[in-house]
């Protein structure tokens, strides 16, 4: 009997161990892995579309953060609640802005994320057989890669040379040139073989790829002092076309979501747009009612409007006025003053009805033969035409505005970078 029991027990034990032998490999049904994504053109295209999502959505996105940081630093905006620590630092300016600043960290982090994934997309597409499909992916990804490089170059003295561990840094002017290279590669692919309908229907359709590539090239060329290049690129932009970041109820306009609708973060300083008295907008400037709302009863009186007035308002990737003013500036700097004046007045006299977005000053023409006067007027027009576009800090430096007009020149590198990358440059004094 004992033998019997031993036998039975052993049999039980053995059968248990066998049935309980255990499966250990489960695949994730929720998310594809990196390898799976970049083995499939549809998935890789979805990553390209995702770049725009990362760039534009939420208070952590680049779009919101650049408008926020630039707006406080250049006096476009006022703070509504000192409990917003990052914004409080920026609105105070100077040494109050430190490496913990969350707004700056958002620009830095999102820019690098976008560059990292854009590189994945571009590398994948460059190896594709179908050139007409690949060109759409490359063109689209290049826009957000260039914007990310360019945004960093506007706020920091030096920018990362690439993505990866312990990356080196390059001068921000080289950063703009790097952005131009990215755009040129995109322009080359798109012009060599126009994107086919398959790729275009999978990407956000409100973006006009080729026009945006040229417009951004013009922007970064003028920023980096390549006036001839800026002029040439600007000439290539079709000003009758729009190119926007669209929004809907699933992807709200970030500025509307966090600032306009809450009245708790920032509002425009007032109808001067933060410009000094000498440059204050003309009282008849029709762009002021476009950009500034008025609330006669509840403080503050001056409210965000423009491209951030509703949850679904699209945000242009560039404005026709910017392209026109780039032309004017390039011509002026190339000492082609009469042409520059014409280009400048094209913006001054543009009525809202003549602009694809309704941005129009409707002012009389400006007359001057003095280069400096023309350049100052170009600066003033840029400040008004491109209100809350995140570009004013760069303009202030390029046009040599007095340091008192801004709260900081350049920004400290986020601690997340400094603590983990020994190549991080020293922080600027202010």
């Amino acid at each position: 009997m004992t033998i019997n029991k031993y036998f039975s027990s052993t049999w039980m034990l053995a059968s248990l161990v066998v049935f309980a032998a255990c499966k250990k490999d489960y695949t994730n049904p929720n998310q594809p892995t990196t390898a799976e994504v970049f083995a499939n053109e549809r998935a890789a295209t979805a990553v390209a579309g995702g770049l725009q999502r990362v760039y534009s959505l939420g208070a952590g996105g680049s779009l919101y953060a650049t408008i926020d940081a630039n707006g406080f630093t250049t006096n476009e905006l006022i703070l509504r609640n000192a409990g917003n620590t990052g914004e409080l630092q920026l609105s105070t300016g100077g040494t109050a802005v430190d490496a913990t600043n969350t707004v700056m960290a958002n620009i830095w982090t999102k820019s690098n994320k976008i560059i990292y994934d854009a590189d994945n997309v571009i590398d994948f597409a460059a190896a594709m057989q179908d050139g007409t499909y690949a060109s759409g992916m490359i063109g689209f990804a290049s826009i957000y890669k260039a914007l990310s490089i360019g945004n960093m170059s506007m706020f920091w003295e030096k920018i990362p040379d690439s993505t990866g561990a312990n990356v080196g840094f390059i001068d921000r002017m080289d950063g703009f040139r790097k952005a131009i290279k990215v755009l040129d590669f995109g322009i080359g692919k798109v012009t060599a073989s126009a994107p086919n309908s398959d790729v275009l229907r999978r990407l956000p359709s409100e973006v006009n790829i080729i026009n945006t590539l040229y417009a951004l090239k013009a922007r970064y060329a003028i920023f980096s002092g390549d006036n001839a290049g800026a002029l040439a690129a600007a000439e290539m932009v079709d000003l009758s076309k729009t190119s926007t970041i669209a929004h809907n109820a699933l992807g709200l306009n970030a500025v509307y979501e966090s600032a306009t609708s809450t009245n708790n973060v920032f509002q425009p300083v007032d109808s001067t747009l933060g410009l000094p008295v000498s440059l204050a907008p003309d009282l008849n400037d029709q762009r002021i009612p476009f950009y500034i709302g008025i609330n006669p009863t509840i403080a503050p009186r001056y409210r965000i409007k423009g491209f951030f007035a509703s949850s679904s308002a699209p945000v242009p990737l560039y404005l026709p006025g910017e392209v026109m003013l780039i032309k004017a500036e390039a011509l002026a700097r190339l000492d082609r003053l009469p042409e520059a004046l014409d280009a400048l007045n094209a913006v001054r006299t543009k009525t809202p009805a003549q602009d694809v977005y309704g941005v129009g000053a409707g002012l009389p023409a400006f007359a001057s033969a003095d280069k400096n006067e023309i350049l100052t007027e170009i600066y003033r027009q840029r400040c008004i035409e491109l209100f809350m576009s995140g570009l004013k800090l760069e303009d202030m430096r390029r046009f040599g505005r007095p340091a008192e007009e801004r709260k900081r020149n350049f920004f400290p590198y986020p601690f997340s970078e400094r603590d983990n990358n020994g190549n991080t440059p020293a922080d600027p004094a202010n």
Partner: protein
Amino acid sequence: MTAALHESPPKSVRGILMAFFLLVSVAVVGQVRLTGTVKDAQGNGIPGITVTVKNTSFATATDVNGAYTLNAGLQPGRYTVHFSGVGFRAAEEPLQVTAAAADYVLGASLERSSKDLDEVIVTGTTQGTTRKQLGSYVSTVSASDLNKGVAANALQALQGKTAGAQIVQNNGDPAGGISVRLRGISSISSSSEPLYIVDGVIVNNATNRVTNTASGYDGNNFVGTIGQNRMTDINPADIDRIEVLNGAAAAAIYGSRANAGVIQIFTKRGKTGAPQINFSTNFMVSKLRKSVPVNQSPVKFGGSPDVFTQDLISTVGTPPALPTNTTNVTRYDYNDYIFRTATGTDNNLSVSGGNDLTKYYVSASYFKNQGIIKNTDYQRYSLRANIDQTINKWISFTAGINYVNSAANEKPDGNSFFSPMNSINIIGNFHNIWERDALGNLKAVGERGRVNPVSIIEDFKQREQTSRVLASAGIKLKPTKNLTINYTVGVDNYSQTGTTFLPPYAYNVNTAFWGGAFPINDSLNGYVSAAADNFYQINHDLTANYEAKLSENLVSVTQVGYSLQYEKNHYIMAQGRGLAPVVQTVAGASTILTPADSRSEMSISGAYLQQTFRVANKLFLTGAVRMDGSSVFGKDQRNQIYTKLSGSYVLSDAKFWNIDSWNLFKLRAAYGQSGNMTGIGAYDRFNSYSTNAYLGKTALVSSTQQANVNVKPERQEEVEFGTDMAFLNSRINFTFNYYIKKVNDLLIARTTAPTTGFSSLLDNFGSLENKGFEIVINATPVRSKDFSWDLTAIYNHNRNKAVKIGQALTLLSTNAGAPVAIIEGQPIGVFYGTFFARDNSGAEVKTATGIPLIEKGVQNSVLSYAPQRDGNGVPSGTTLRKVLGNPNPKYTASLVNEFSYKRLGLRVQLDAVQGVDVWNADWRTRQGVGNGKVAEQEQMGLLPRGYINGVYAIEEWRIDDGSFVKLREISLSYNTGPLGKAFKGLTISASGRNLISWDHYKGYDPEVNSGGQSTILRGIDFGSVPIPASFSVGVSAKF
């Protein structure tokens, strides 16, 4: 074969049953009737003593008079009968069974035991061992200690009753989450909750977010682990006792998942004898223990509250300036509106009994308690049946089934400005929130789109329900005298569903709070969600135990075991905004938001071998080795080996020991390793892309966190030394434990340079260390015929720090704005941030108008800085940061005094948590929006204008003293003894919980945590409901 296991578990059960029936057909033996009475030294019968015929499966327990009857199928021969029970030293009596007689009488007299040395501890073994043999500390809490307060669930009942544990109720909701930390935290990235085992079955204690689902709810910040945790399903009245294993040294046998310790719960089981019916009913009342004072200033700065609500920190004009004009206002105390006196009831009925072969325990309970926040409540139905069946001399089995159904009416949790607490914290107290327009609609609260608290209390509907089955079956075989084989299978299956309904607002509410802003955008206004979490887990445990007497003084016990766990979870959530009037389902949303559909599977298996030597019943040595594998880790790291070694020596049992007044002296030492097999999610080791609907297309976005496919589980190593002593015939007992618990290969989502393309990297980095000691003193200062006084004191001291994490500073961005940091050499989760400038005498450096300044200077490193002053004595340089506070307490302690006079009993428990800081986000907010007392001073001119605006950004201003001593439990009871034929006993009791707190905290209650059950977010007060003071009166009857 392997796949079949997961798809059809019944197949495996069939296998067991087949084997089982094969085996039943053995042994037929004679029936023996054994009776007797077990008495104490004074000759009084002792109830509840377990009587076991050794090396058989026959056992019973004594009744209330100490008598027992045991019918056993025994062949003629020599047997040993074993008598044991809590508080008594076990005894053995020989029994000679002959073929001639069927009836035997065998009594026993038991001595009160010192420190319950002979109490049987089941945790960590299959057969059970005695406390005397343990080389490590295991605490046991019995039902009588658990059920005297007004505890709503098992973990609340355990507060202050076990050494080494910090048990925090994180939220005062009636089913508010509770976190348990045994000897500090044991991880950073994953849960630090212990492994819970109920009757041998691993029980899931997840916190699932089926309500509070909104994604915009916590923005991009880290919110923690909020909501109910599933241990709330276990009915405390069903619990017989709880064993707590604090660390790896004790818990090595649970190797795979025991990093944070083990809490093993044993439910009540039937005993031989006439059916015993227990009925108890309690009526409970809860209320807010302490409110916060509100601003009573008759004026506010600036104009009307409707157009300028946030008057302390908002500027007007160009250039922007703080307004100094004032407006008269009426002040309200919204606390009176959101809180109420809540009532509840707890009813339990159980029937237990059995004969020698079959024993049962069946219970039913209904618990319902209202929350102190209006319109919140929680109810729970629970049914349980436990059966023990002896088949024959060598086979017995057990089965248990527990069905639980719970439902809660909730309000949004803290961490959002649309929770009841936050809604009154984020507005000045000068709005008539009850005012309605001609159409009966509520009005906007000021100009900032805040949610009116009346909407939250009256209109928001948030509800969750859980339906759960816990089932277990076990078989025990004793094929030969010294061999025992156990097999247990357990299933935990629940469905937790939740619905959230934030109806469209009639007034301007921020879109971030699911409003439609102004003018109201109907496609955004209102929020609705429905979510479900379905969880299934099965575990199998097989062990064999062999005991061999190698010589007169040397006994060897060998144990081998195999365990397998498989779990599957499916979370699904639909949500939308922009709601149609009236409709409360997602179908009524005009904007369908991104749904969630998350599925996971994982399995863990392991085998172990444990060897114990008992030398002369004085020296005990145990060694064990265990191998485990978990599917969540990389292939190469999957199988991990854990070892354990422990020993104890009872010096007072040695021949030379002759100190009469010192009757016990035991020394023990233990070393053990354990792992964290569920330390990361099922698929966290893969770099993946998340999918999102974007502009009508699919967008893929790579995670912000980089993964490492070869990540391995965290490994804990613990060394523990301890002693147990008893003096004066065990009137005084003393236990001391010292431990060093180190978690290596710490899984940290470490901040990485954003230029890598990722914000963090989840990998194994460095260690964390907990060092500390525990002291437990039990004493009986008075023991006489009618009066006795028993005292228990527990003191726990723990120091936690990060070691060699290879990164100077990891700062987490949290929802409450708490700068939670991981810093080399510092306790985990400290608050690290900006602070007040002070002069050499420690006084605050202020502006000419008397506004304190932030400290500036040169920051040399994370922990080193040099303040700097400019020519005017004003701080200059960069803003400095330092460690501001620590949410890990310096020590926790509890003191229980129990008095009994004849049939009257009084129990008083004080709990202390000292040396702990709280991030009081709410207190600062109250000043900023103008409903706090500092705001009152500024408005009344007692503080300079701009004071609050000036200090608002200084993070030190939000650090508060979280130390407290609480009157945790007090209960007075009267036991009538037998009342006529009907009642075997009747107990009437009145008790209270959390009635008094002695603290200096500026908020409601320092004992809350808005990070919920999060490991790393501790001591954060951001909208959590304070823990109520509760009273209860009850009757419990035995029939």
